[in-house]
């Protein structure tokens, strides 16, 4: 049965970017305020799920050729490697640090190593969520 969901598809095209932007915001806000890798990742995953819902799996898989299981691996390794970095520098595992850096045009920005760790969390959450959802929906 062919369903005509042109409204959903049109709305999705715009809304997905809004959701991604919000996910991006949440991710970076997480260092001091509400947010973080997990929530940002869930939000990004929900945008992707919306794409899969309004189009079909084949189309999106062509447009975003990511193996989500591999994404989990990437995420976990990024997070662990940030911990290993602190071992190599002679600090206890998972030690994090931050520095205020003066950028031209942007002004002073706080750069923290824990953001790298959160990046790993983000990838893992996106990968995990989509693996679960796609493995249920793929073979219907």
């Amino acid at each position, binding site marked *: 049965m062919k369903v005509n969901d042109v409204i959903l598809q049109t709305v999705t095209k715009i809304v997905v970017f809004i959701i991604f932007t919000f996910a991006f915001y949440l991710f970076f806000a997480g260092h*001091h305020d509400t947010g973080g890798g*997990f929530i940002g990742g869930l939000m990004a995953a929900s945008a992707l799920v919306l794409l899969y819902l309004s189009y079909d799996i084949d189309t999106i898989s062509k447009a975003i050729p990511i193996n989500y299981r591999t994404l989990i691996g990437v995420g976990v390794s990024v997070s662990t490697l940030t911990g290993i970095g602190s071992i190599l520098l002679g600090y206890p595992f998972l030690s994090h640090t931050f520095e205020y850096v003066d950028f031209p045009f942007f002004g002073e920005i706080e750069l923290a190593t824990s953001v790298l760790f959160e990046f790993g969390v983000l990838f893992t959450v996106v990968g*995990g*969520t989509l693996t*679960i959802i796609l*493995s*249920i929906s793929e*073979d219907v």
Partner: protein
Amino acid sequence: MEILMSILIGVLITAGTYLVMSRSLLRIILGTSVIGHGALLLLLTTAGLKEGAPPITNIEALTYADPLPQALILTAIVINFATTGFFLVLAYRAYKELGTDDMDKLRGIDDE
């Protein structure tokens, strides 16, 4: 507030237990996540409820909420999320493979 929360936790865990006892697999999964919510609320409540103060953000703050239970709850939510997701996939596979979601029919029989 603590009294209200206790009642709510009791209701959640009761409802969850009831759902877990039922025969349909999907209800069982819902039941486990409802129990999970009850347990997390309990963690929040026993750690002490406070009004009007955010978690500690700068050292000079005079009043702040204990950040530890919130961190614990976030971790537990992530774990619940993963287990529930896995359980759903497992239940779906089992339903496809075994053709039933009735726990009575999923009893093991020795002679297979």
